[in-house]
């Protein structure tokens, strides 16, 4: 459905994206992840036809993203990373305007979405909060029932409840066979919705795998309170787990996703007073990934 080949786009600063290759099949959801400035939005600019690449091509449903951009837009929904509306319009006027620009009349789906996100788009958009603007962006991207969705950090600014509703919306769309590229920093969102994940850094793909594989590679951290810290550290070391003394009665231990069973069995050898998981965000996952990269180099 989406096919990116040798895509290279270089800015005058020398930054950009270099020789990207990936495919997204129909019905697949691809997580597109990377730190700020990695080239996520740049890739999306090429897919939307905003910028012509220096080299390479990208196509959606066989249509060239630059030449056939208007045709592609018929079945594409897009949430910009930095949303900006026409400030002097009210929310309703904006939605109405987008319908007209798309040449559509039916706004049944629009009303469903407004209800889902609890959004009453009366009043000037200028007065909207960040979260309301984001919701309006989501409604705009989904309201014409597009087959392909390109979402650039779609849930930034949403409260946790709305983030859950958004995840459910994505899952619902997935059921309908929609193809989605989701650029996100929220691990839960990617974990729950995506089939595959691309991690991009400095314009290059550094990891392209399924979510399961990525989760396996995720290092988990635990804070435990044993009766004897010295002894606990030695025990973990013998089983090849890295641990550090945190303060005089706690230590932290790290364990890769595929060694959980071994880890718990090692813990069973100790006497523990407390056991906490260090919650990890997606950033930690790719931070760790980059660190590994560094070691390999």
């Amino acid at each position: 459905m989406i096919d990116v080949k040798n895509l290279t786009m270089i800015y005058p600063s020398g930054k950009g994206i270099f020789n990207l290759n990936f495919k997204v099949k129909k019905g697949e959801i691809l997580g597109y992840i990377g730190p700020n400035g990695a080239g996520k939005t740049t890739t999306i600019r090429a897919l939307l036809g905003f910028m012509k690449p220096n080299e390479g091509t990208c196509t959606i449903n066989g249509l060239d993203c630059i030449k056939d951009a208007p045709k592609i837009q018929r079945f594409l929904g897009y949430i910009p990373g930095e949303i900006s509306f026409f400030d002097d319009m009210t929310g309703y006027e904006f939605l109405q305007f987008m319908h007209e620009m798309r040449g559509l009349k039916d706004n049944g789906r629009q009303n469903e979405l407004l209800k889902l996100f609890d959004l009453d788009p009366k009043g000037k958009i200028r007065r909207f909060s960040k979260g309301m603007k984001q919701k309006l962006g989501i409604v705009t991207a989904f309201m014409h029932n597009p087959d392909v969705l390109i979402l650039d950090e779609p849930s930034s600014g949403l409260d946790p409840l709305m983030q859950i509703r958004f995840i459910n919306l994505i899952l619902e769309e997935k059921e309908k066979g929609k193809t989605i590229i989701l650029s996100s920093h929220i691990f839960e969102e990617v974990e729950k919705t995506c089939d595959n994940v691309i991690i991009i850094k400095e314009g290059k793909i550094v990891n392209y795998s399924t979510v399961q594989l990525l989760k396996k590679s995720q290092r988990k951290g635990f804070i435990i309170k044993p009766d004897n810290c010295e002894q606990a550290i030695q025990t973990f070391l013998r089983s090849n787990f890295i641990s550090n003394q945190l303060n005089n009665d706690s230590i932290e231990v790290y364990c890769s996703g595929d060694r959980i069973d071994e880890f718990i069995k090692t813990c069973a050898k100790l006497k523990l007073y407390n056991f906490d998981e260090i919650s990890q965000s997606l950033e930690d996952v790719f931070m760790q990934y980059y660190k590994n990269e560094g070691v390999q180099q």
Partner: protein
Amino acid sequence: MSLALLKKDLKQNYTLFLIFLSVLVMYMLMMIPMFNPDDINELLIILNMMPIEMLRAMGFSDIITDLTSFLASWLYGMLMFGFPMVYCIILGNRLVSKMIDNNSFAYLLSTPNSRVKLIVTQGFFALFSLLLLFVLVFSSGLLFSHLIHPGLLDVSAFLKLNIMTMLLNMVIIMICFTSSCIFNESRRSSGVGSGIAVTFLLMNMLGSSSLDLEILKKMSLYGLYNPVDLVRGSNVTGIGLFFLGLIILLFTISVLIFNKKRLPI
């Protein structure tokens, strides 16, 4: 052309349009009663009291004896392009580069409309709004003259004068529009567009104030024709066609550049 976008442009810019329209119509309403065929000599005395350089710079240099030349000199010698110039700068910037700068153009491009279609619509709106502005200014001139000095206005000369001034303003808005299509930063776009327009205006004013500097006026877009000579029958078809050619050329360049360029949205 996108009708929906045109409607949005209209909604978004009608206040700006009305402000400029009302000022121009107000000037028309003020100037027409000031013409008094009997008092024309008194006016000449006042004019003679002022330094000739200043009068020339303001475009009031010619001796006026009829209503049409009076309006051509007092209104169309400076005000009817000096003032709408500000409108051209603001609108030219609003129609493209401002929306690129604040990212909202992304929403126009995320609809099944090509860049060419969108930008032709924006350019058309710019030109259409000036057409409407001058149709209304012309009509108000016609109406007030008829009410205040029935029969004194040379309608066909006054029409020619308005068409010419409109074309001149259209060239200016196209300069601003082209600049708006080239530059992604709103500040740059309006800086370059207004820079060019203001330079032409200053060249015209300086060139009019002294015979030594007349070359400046001749090189300025604003000084290519003399409005008083125009209403007195001098042939300006060539310059009119030149303006028209320039409008088409600038519009084409804008569309070509915008269609090809990288948009950082």
